[in-house]
């Protein structure tokens, strides 16, 4: 379990997150929904150690406190992040990107088997191994980013808007891969999405973030039919009655 408590983030005078708390279970997909500027990306960056949190924050991964570790040690602890804009090594080949994904000490055993698993999950990457990553299409780059994160043998995987820039068909494929990753590899997934409809279809649990506050939470199938969610994130008018 990934237990998150009291995560607050300030950028100068502006406070982006207020005492955010959430739990992510292994083998499940947890989605964080919110409009632009709600603080979703900031939240993932704070968990990944890329932006500092205010004192008092607690992030426990399998019981181990990681909230004060630098970013690279959080990966060693088992938390991988696919950031906004993917963060792949554009000038390096696909093979090198995946190889670097396995840089963490925790990932050095069974590297071959894990690479095989990633290539089976994203068959497209197998034919593209020698290609320079930035010359690939957006969908393929997203696969590289996810594959690279998988190579670090994470217990928990965080993804920031993986469907951004993908066609509806590709988005569907991508969400299906996420479902497989969660179930087959017993990885807990924390997903940040604007695409509420698709993400709630594959998620188990959801949180609603607004202006840096958690304003709602519940099982995904409940959120899917909740009038608040429908109005705010699915853009549907709710017929009273």
């Amino acid at each position, binding site marked *: 379990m990934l237990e998150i408590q009291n995560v607050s983030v300030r950028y100068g005078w502006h406070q982006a997150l207020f005492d955010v708390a959430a739990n992510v279970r292994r083998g499940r997909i947890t989605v964080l929904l919110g409009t632009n500027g709600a603080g979703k990306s900031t939240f993932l960056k704070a968990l990944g150690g890329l932006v500092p949190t205010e004192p008092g924050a607690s992030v426990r991964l399998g019981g181990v406190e990681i909230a004060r570790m630098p*970013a690279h040690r959080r*990966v060693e602890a088992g938390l991988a992040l696919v*950031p906004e804009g993917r*963060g792949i*090594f554009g000038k390096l080949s696909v093979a090198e990107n995946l190889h*670097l994904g396995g840089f*963490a000490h925790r990932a050095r055993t069974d590297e071959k088997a894990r690479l095989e698993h990633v290539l089976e999950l994203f068959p497209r990457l197998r034919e593209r191994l020698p290609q320079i990553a*930035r010359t690939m299409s957006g969908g393929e780059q997203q696969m590289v980013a996810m594959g690279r994160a998988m190579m670090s043998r994470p217990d928990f995987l965080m993804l920031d808007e993986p469907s951004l820039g993908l066609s509806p068909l590709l988005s569907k494929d991508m969400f299906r891969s996420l479902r497989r990753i969660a179930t087959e590899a017993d990885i807990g997934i924390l997903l940040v999405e604007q695409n509420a409809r698709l993400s709630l279809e594959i998620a188990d649990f959801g949180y609603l973030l607004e202006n840096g506050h958690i304003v709602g939470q519940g099982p995904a199938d409940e959120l899917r039919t909740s009038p608040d969610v429908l109005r705010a994130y699915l853009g549907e008018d709710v017929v009273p009655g």
Partner: protein
Amino acid sequence: MTILVTGILLGGTYALIALGLTLQYGVARIMNLSNGETLVAACFAAWLLFTAGGINPLWGLLIIAPLGFIANGAIYLGLLRPLVRRASSQGMLEVDSILATFGLLFLFQGLMHLAFGGAYFNYQFLAVPFDFLGGSYALNRVTAFFAAVIIALALYLFLYRTRIGTAVRAVAVDPDAARLVAIDVGRIAAFAFALGGAITASGGVLLSTFYTFNASMGAVFVMKALIIVIMGGVGDVRGAAIAALILGVMETLVASLIDPGLTLAATYGLFIVILLFRPQGLFGGAKG
């Protein structure tokens, strides 16, 4: 033909010096203007070992390169890491580190002046002719070239075939992404800076076997290295090697066909042309 070979032989040593600088700038993001002082210190160290201890400079490499590693590592950890820590942006770090290493340049230059004075030094190592394709070349230049090729190849294999080497390149490409794959960027940067110092020191040792050196030539060489690095593309090992050969041949051409006094002018002329027309390097594509 003779000019071409002489130029290539000189370029081999230039390549090592530039590779040291490109590692420091490309990975640790420090434009180390005092890199030339590592080179000069290595020249003097090789001279001392040879004249006082009778140690062959090729063996001297085994002592001086590790010393270059340690000294540059200490400079990074002691003086430059505080700048890295407080820098709020890449631009700020660049300005701070250029000013700091510019100061170091004069500090080390002064110390070496104090120790060795302003006189020119050289020593006789393998100063015998070597005949090749109808031309005659000093054996020490040929030896230095092949030693440089071996060291550069070893560096290339390290960077492209090992996990740590790949991590070094990853930090050069994207330090933020490197953190996401559990790379300790601070440690890799310190390591690359130290390694760059060791490579430049090796270049200095090889240079001293055929070149007359003095305590104040560091600045000239760091400029040459800078030209090579920019010509080859920042952080590009292969580009730097080819650019070094080009610079070596060009300097030899100007020196033997026009006037030896013009080599430095020609070097800077080339620098300006490159900055104007190919600022991303001869082999670099568009930025990205």
